[in-house]
C-alpha cells in the first residue's frame, strides 16, 4: 500500500499561459517515454526481481514516478485551467477542449492515449533492468527537447529537476544491474529458471 503526501515532490507554480507548451508537456504524461509509463513499468517489473534490494529499488522508483506523473499533470492543468475555449482552439488544443475540456488526459503529444504497449515486463531481471535504463535515457532526452522548446523559467526549473531525477535513476538501475549479475554468478544460482523452479516447490 501507499502513504500519500499531500504535496508535490517539486513545487509547481506556473503563471504563464503557454498553451502550446501544455500541449507538448503531455509527452511526459501519457507519452511512450513518459512518467505514467515509467511508473507502470517499474511497479509491474518489481515482482520478478531476484533480490529484496532490487524489488525495493523498483518499488521506490516506481512510486517516485507516480509523484512525477502528478507534477506533470499539475503543470498541464495549471496552464489549461484558465484558458477559454477560443484560446485552446488557437493553441491547437481544440480537440482537448472538445473531448476533455480542461481536464488532463494521459496521451502523447499527438493525442494518442496512453497504452501498456509502451512498457514491457519480460520476467527476466537482466532484460527488465536494461529496459529501465533505456527508459530513463529516453525520458532524459525528452526532457531536453521540452526544455529547448520553452523560455518560461517556471516550467524550465521543474523540467530540469525531473531531468536530474532521470540521471539519478539511471545510476541506480546501473548499480542494480551489476548487483543482479553478481547474484546470478553466486554459487547458489545456476540459472534464473532453476531458481524459479526451486522457489515454486
Amino acid at each position, binding site marked *: 500500500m501507499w502513504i500519500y503526501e499531500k504535496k508535490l515532490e517539486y513545487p509547481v507554480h506556473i503563471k504563464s499561459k503557454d498553451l502550446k507548451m501544455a500541449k507538448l508537456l503531455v509527452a511526459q504524461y501519457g507519452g511512450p517515454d513518459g512518467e505514467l509509463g515509467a511508473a507502470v513499468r517499474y511497479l509491474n517489473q518489481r515482482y520478478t526481481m531476484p533480490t529484496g534490494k532490487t524489488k525495493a529499488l523498483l518499488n521506490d522508483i516506481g512510486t517516485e514516478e507516480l509523484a512525477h506523473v502528478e507534477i506533470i499533470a499539475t503543470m498541464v492543468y495549471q496552464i489549461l485551467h484558465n484558458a477559454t475555449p477560443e484560446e485552446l482552439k488557437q493553441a491547437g488544443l481544440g480537440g482537448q477542449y472538445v473531448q476533455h475540456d480542461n481536464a488532463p488526459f494521459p496521451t502523447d503529444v499527438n493525442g494518442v492515449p496512453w497504452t501498456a504497449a509502451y512498457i514491457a515486463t519480460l520476467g527476466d531481471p537482466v532484460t527488465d533492468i536494461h529496459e529501465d535504463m533505456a527508459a530513463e535515457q529516453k525520458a532524459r532526452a525528452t526532457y531536453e527537447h521540452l526544455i529547448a522548446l520553452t523560455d518560461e523559467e517556471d516550467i524550465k526549473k521543474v523540467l530540469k529537476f525531473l531531468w536530474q531525477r532521470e540521471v539519478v535513476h539511471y545510476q541506480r538501475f*546501473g548499480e542494480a*544491474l551489476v548487483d543482479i549479475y553478481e547474484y546470478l554468478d553466486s554459487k547458489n544460482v545456476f540459472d534464473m529458471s532453476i531458481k524459479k523452479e526451486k522457489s515454486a516447490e
Partner: protein
Amino acid sequence: MDQFYFPCMNRMYMQKQISIPNGIKITISRAFVPDQPYTNMFPLDEALLKGTLFPNLYVPYPIKSME
C-alpha cells in the same frame, strides 16, 4: 597450414573478464555501471531543489542559464 586460419586458442585470449582500475573486473557482453562513491552531501533544502543529495551525481544542465 590450418594454424594460420584457425582462431587463436591461446587461453590468454579467451578470458571473458577484463580488469579496470580500482581492482574492478568487468565482463564482456555485459553492461557495467560503476557504483556511485558515497561521499559528501548537499544541504537538504538544496538537495530537494537540485534533484539529488549527492554532488557527484549532480549534473549542471547543459544550457548555461539553467545551472
